[in-house]
């Protein structure tokens, strides 16, 4: 008798608790990152950061009492896989928003899926065509290539250096950069005197650089991700090229300096502010976010947080911001995101609107220079 009552009470209690859990069910957020494969240098810090931020939000009690649950898949940088996994996130896992993918190619492939299923996507890749033209359900946190190009051309224009040589990698990143460089050149009165490419796995670029040395270039702009630009820096030093060398934001991490060694000295590049967070003036809106991100990442992963991780940080925080304002479904999160104003994140200060789903201005980039194996802001 006693036991029966006890067990009944127990069952009732269990039911009570379970409904309680049900009521505060976590808000599911999907993530697609290229953790393995050629774009792993993007996907790995992004996944790590997203996990870190979600864990910290949950540790602090979640958002408005609701926990967040991050469901993260590895796309291996493969667009077909990204599409399958996006469908899986929406249909099986029933997520209300997706962060990622890491590369522009994957993002373009996933866009039709999220548009059809009406789930907001915050891409971590840089290609400007992702949000140009604006798609209803697609946002992005990575700075447009065009902003980085603008930074370099700005600097050259001020110094009246008008002849530039391009050396871009023959993959998506390089092609997009090359397109932007060529499109914006005339606006800044810049003439492209030499236009060369190299393969992402090439091991010697002296041939291209020799050709550039023979041209009238006053600056060389190289657009690529590691290790190519490090090889180019070394080759340029070998050839004794004195022409100033500019890189893209694709190599704005300590790894580049480590790989290129002394050859990196004096190279300038546009970079997200995360690289030089401690050098920023206190008046900078982003400084607080930047320092806390760098510190957290250091504590969690014993590595320096880079701006790739920052894209994921921004994405999670933007979703958090939308949820804080009362959103909890795909539709309301999308609407909330679009109303984001003046959010000072890692990549820059975001101002989304119905006409702008990229949300960043030219101040998202600073020009930095390698001095004594470290980054210094160019004034």
């Amino acid at each position, binding site marked *: 008798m006693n036991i029966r009552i006890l067990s009944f009470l127990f069952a009732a209690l269990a039911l009570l608790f379970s409904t309680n859990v049900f009521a505060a069910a976590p808000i599911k957020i999907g993530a697609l990152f290229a953790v*393995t494969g*050629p774009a*792993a*240098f993007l996907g*790995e810090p992004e996944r790590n950061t997203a996990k870190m931020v979600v864990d910290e939000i949950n540790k602090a009690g979640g958002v408005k009492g609701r926990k967040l649950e991050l469901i993260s898949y590895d796309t291996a940088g493969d667009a077909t896989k990204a599409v399958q996994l996006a469908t899986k996130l929406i249909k099986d896992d029933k997520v209300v928003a997706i962060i990622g993918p890491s590369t522009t190619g994957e993002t373009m492939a996933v866009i039709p899926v999220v548009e059809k299923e009406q789930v907001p996507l915050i891409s971590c890749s840089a290609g400007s065509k992702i949000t140009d033209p604006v798609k209803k359900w697609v946002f992005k946190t990575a700075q447009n290539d065009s902003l980085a190009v603008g930074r370099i051309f700005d600097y050259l224009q001020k110094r009246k250096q008008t002849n530039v040589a391009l050396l871009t990698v*023959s993959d998506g990143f390089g092609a997009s950069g090359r397109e932007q460089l060529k499109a914006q050149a005339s606006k800044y009165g810049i003439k492209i005197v030499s236009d*060369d*490419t*190299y*393969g992402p*796995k*090439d*091991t*010697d670029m*002296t*041939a*291209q650089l*020799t*050709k550039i*040395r*023979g041209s009238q270039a006053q600056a060389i702009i190289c657009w690529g991700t*590691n*290790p190519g630009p*490090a*090889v180019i820096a*070394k080759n340029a*030093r*070998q*050839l*004794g090229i004195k022409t100033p060398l500019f890189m893209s934001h694709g190599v704005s991490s300590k*790894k580049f300096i*480590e*790989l290129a*060694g*002394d*050859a990196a000295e004096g190279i300038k590049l546009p970079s997200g502010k995360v690289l030089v967070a401690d050098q920023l003036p206190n008046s900078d809106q982003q400084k607080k976010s930047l320092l806390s991100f760098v510190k957290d990442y250091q504590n969690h992963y014993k590595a320096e947080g880079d701006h790739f991780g920052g894209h994921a940080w921004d994405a999670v925080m933007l979703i958090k911001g939308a949820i804080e304002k009362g959103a909890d479904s795909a539709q309301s999160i999308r609407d909330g995101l679009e109303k984001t104003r003046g959010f000072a994140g890692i990549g820059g200060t975001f101002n989304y609107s119905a006409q702008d789903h990229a949300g960043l201005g030219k101040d998202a980039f600073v020009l930095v220079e390698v001095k004594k194996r470290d980054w210094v802001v160019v004034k």
Partner: protein
Amino acid sequence: MQFDQILQYALSGFSTGAIYALIGIGFSIIYNATGIINFAQGEFVMLGGLLTLTCLDLLQLPLWAAIPCAVAVSTVAGLLFERLAIRPLRQPTPINLVIITIGGSILIRGLAMLLWGKDTHAIPAFSGDDPIAIGGATILPQHLWILAITVVIIAINKFYFYHTISGKAMRACSYNRRAAGLVGIDVRRMVLFSFMISSAMGAVAGIIVAPLTMTAYDVGVMLGLKGFCAAIIGGMSSGIATVVGGLLLGVLESLGAGLISSGYKDAIAFIILLLILFIRPQGLFGKADSERV
């Protein structure tokens, strides 16, 4: 100015070509002893570079000790590969063996990715980074190392194949396996040797290029393919023909990138490969030999 440029293209081409040659010879040694193309050859190039890095960083060895250490470990890897993947095969038809080497290369690459991570790593140059001027062109001390080591290795190879018993036995296997077996040559042991020699050579190639090109778990793929091109141009000979093939490939690539367009650099290598396969499958310098094809 124009002459300076051509000289620079040629010098750059020679130094990359020497690497292709070294890797190409690794391909042809195994081909001659076993009749298979070892597509895992590129992975030993990668192992050489990454193992040197481990010896330098983890074991804190000086460079002169790290290099033999890395070569030794790669040789053991080559030995294990032959023992575990090639020898146990029931029906060693060429197509089965080739597929196994492709599988092996994916496995080795995967393991390397787990062990060393996905980052690119740099190894210090053997003797500094200060460029040396030759005419109007410049090369690095490391390029001289590459050329010198390639020459030494090819000389050792020549000596081994023509002046030692085991080298002659290996050549006998390449001419006719059955007959070699009948006169008392242990063909299986020769196959094992060929894998060890070529993995050691691959590792050396990987080590001497790492200071210039840096190294990562996936560098073996492209270098392996280029080495394969060199071997095809050389008609799969384990001697001077493959060396010339490698140098030719390097110089053409470099000239093509400089004078025509850098976008076609890799295409040039593969167009040459296809042309050779179509027109002169016996290699640029080989006599027509129907048995070999």
